[in-house]
């Protein structure tokens, strides 16, 4: 800075910024900036032609299984699905780790909502890259979608004999994976109503939940379109397993009405549990087992609504590029041993997909063995509904209508 002329210029400008603009005039800056923009914009033009689909060509996205060398698994699941990992004597996961020497990195609550989870893993799976997870658990329709996209590794049934031996007959051949080549049920469950019996009178129907004045603003519904719309369809008198686009629109209008009236406080994923605990809501649409295993039962009651309830299954999938498939197969096999399945079900209170678990459970927990949550009677199951399989176009259209209601 020994040059007087530039000293003067800097001095008048009054600062570093002014000094820089003296060096690079505004015109030349703009010229340079637009050149830079073009240079960067040119590769951008490539994607001006659209994007490829997320479907992966079958058998092209493979990986080497490192299970023999690396005794570990990364396991993503919903909350309230495995008995507490830290409890040494009771935890099934702890037992699995001791028996097999495989360490499980359990990501509790990594899955909070099927669509959200899809959004989390789709950039990697659509591009044939690792998600960093070896196994995750998603609901039927989402498992179907991922298998259809060829995102899931085929299981080796020789390594999961317990699954072949003990999987409930009714779950053996879903339309989207008839031989269970890609998926193994984790638990099934029911969607119904949970209410806090200390803060409200019993809520036994969706009609009540959504119209009773004393529940105004103290009710939550699930962000899962299928769960929530199933009840709207039932209220409309439609069959959730077979309905038309018009019937769906009518059900959406009904939902909009409940939102506009202020009855519904918000839409929640698995975190509805927190709002029940804080007392901000007194009743909500809820998944059966959560009420026992996360809310501890007691004043929290779960009831199948008088209109009927939803029944679904969550499935374990091994995504492409996961490098510990054989370890995961050991885990699947472990949980299909009726002894372990019984232990798990006695804690999480979801429908147990393992034959023989009921006899096991009877030996240490009589009330669980009789529970309609874990081993529902044929009578109970008859009132269960499933959501119709959707085409891609319907899926998008319905989800958009649903999001527009959720989005105010």
């Amino acid at each position, binding site marked *: 800075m*020994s040059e007087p002329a530039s000293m003067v210029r800097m001095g008048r400008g009054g600062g570093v910024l002014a000094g820089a603009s003296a*060096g*690079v005039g505004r015109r030349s800056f703009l010229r*340079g900036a637009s050149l830079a923009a073009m240079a960067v*914009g040119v590769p951008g033009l490539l994607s001006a032609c659209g994007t490829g689909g997320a479907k992966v060509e079958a058998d092209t996205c493979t990986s080497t299984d490192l299970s023999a060398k690396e005794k570990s698994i990364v396991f993503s699941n919903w909350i309230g699905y495995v008995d507490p990992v830290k409890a040494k004597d009771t935890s099934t996961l702890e037992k699995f780790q001791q028996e097999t020497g495989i360490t499980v990195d359990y990501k509790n609550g990594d899955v909070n909502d099927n669509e959200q989870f899809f959004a989390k893993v789709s950039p990697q799976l659509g591009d044939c890259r690792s998600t960093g997870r070896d196994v995750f658990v998603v609901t039927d329709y989402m498992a179907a979608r991922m298998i259809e996209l060829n995102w899931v590794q085929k299981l080796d049934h020789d390594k999961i004999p317990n699954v072949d031996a003990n999987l409930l007959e009714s779950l053996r051949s879903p339309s989207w994976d008839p031989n269970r080549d890609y998926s193994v049920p984790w638990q099934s469950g029911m969607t119904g109503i949970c209410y806090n019996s200390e803060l409200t009178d019993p809520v036994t129907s969706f009609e009540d939940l959504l119209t009773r004045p004393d529940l105004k603003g103290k009710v939550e519904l699930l962000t899962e379109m299928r769960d929530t719309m199933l009840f709207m369809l039932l209220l409309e008198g439609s069959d959730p397993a077979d309905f038309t686009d018009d019937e769906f629109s009518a059900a959406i209008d009904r939902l909009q009405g409940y939102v506009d009236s202020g009855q519904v*406080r918000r*839409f929640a994923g698995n975190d509805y549990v927190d709002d029940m605990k804080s007392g901000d809501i007194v009743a909500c649409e809820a998944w059966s087992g959560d009420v026992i295993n996360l809310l501890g039962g007691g004043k929290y009651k779960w009831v199948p609504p008088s209109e009927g309830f939803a029944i679904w299954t969550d499935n374990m999938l091994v995504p492409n590029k996961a490098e510990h498939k054989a370890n995961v197969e050991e885990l699947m096999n472990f949980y299909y041993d009726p002894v372990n399945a019984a232990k798990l079900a006695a804690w999480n209170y979801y429908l147990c997909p393992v034959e023989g678990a009921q006899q096991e459970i009877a030996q240490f927990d009589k009330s669980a063995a009789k529970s309609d949550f874990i081993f529902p009677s044929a009578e109970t199951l008859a009132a269960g509904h499933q959501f119709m399989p959707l085409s891609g176009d319907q899926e998008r259209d319905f989800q958009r209508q649903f999001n527009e209601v*959720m*989005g*105010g």
Partner: protein
Amino acid sequence: MSAAPPSPAPRAAVDGETSRRRGLGWLLLVPGMLWLAVFFLFPTIQLFFTSLYDPSGSYEQGYTMTWHVMNYVDAVTDTWNLFVRSFAYAGIATVVCLALSYPLAYAIAFKAGRWKNFLLVLVIAPFFTSFLLRTLAWRTILSDQGPVTSFLQTIAVLPDDGRLLATPVAVIAGLVYNFMPFMTLPLYASLDKVDHRLIEAAGDLYSSPIAGFRRVTFPLSLPGVVSGTLLTFIPACGDYINAELLGTPKQYMVGNRIQSAFLTEHNYPLAASLSLILMAVVVVMVVLYIRRAGTEDLV
């Protein structure tokens, strides 16, 4: 540059120096420009193209480019109410922020004495924990059974069955809280630079303290007001966390709709056109505002 020898031929030396300075100016711009090009310009161009994809495509099948301009029309007709709500909430939050931050910044700049640095650290302290956690904490604070709600019910500000959480008040309060440091810091920076002799001079000329503030201090702090309001209003328009966690569907802002369009519908054209419309409207509003407020020296 200090190594440059004292020049015997001033004219030529000045020219050489100027062109070297010019080169240096460009060089200093390179890192920032590259960063913005890769992480802002390129994604924005990509977003622009995405907003014109054929809306009948899907995530599974892919999207084809058909220059479908109608995406913008659809986006506006479906969600104009969310835009109105977003700008209203962000606007109110900005005004409240200004009203709360100005006295705070004023006190720190003029009255804090040796506590100045300590108070500044306190203003920044919320950044030590994550934005998400702080907003979640507000859910506990405002909860129906929580102390704030029951206090307000006791003094009859809220009706007995009234609530704070899941109302517009909670969402706006969350926005105010989360963006307050962005308002306070620029205000402080401006106020701190105000020459005290000017305020004294106003007093010497028989100005009342109020008139002195109105005609001397406040005009001198305007650059801080302008940059503070911009730093608050712009991010508040696009925020969706506060509406999601502290509100209900009736308080959702345009950010919530963009999020659900991107993440659960995979309707990329809709999400992209919503994002660009938001960006464009904010830019227009900001330009009008700056024109009116003047930006002689914002920093």
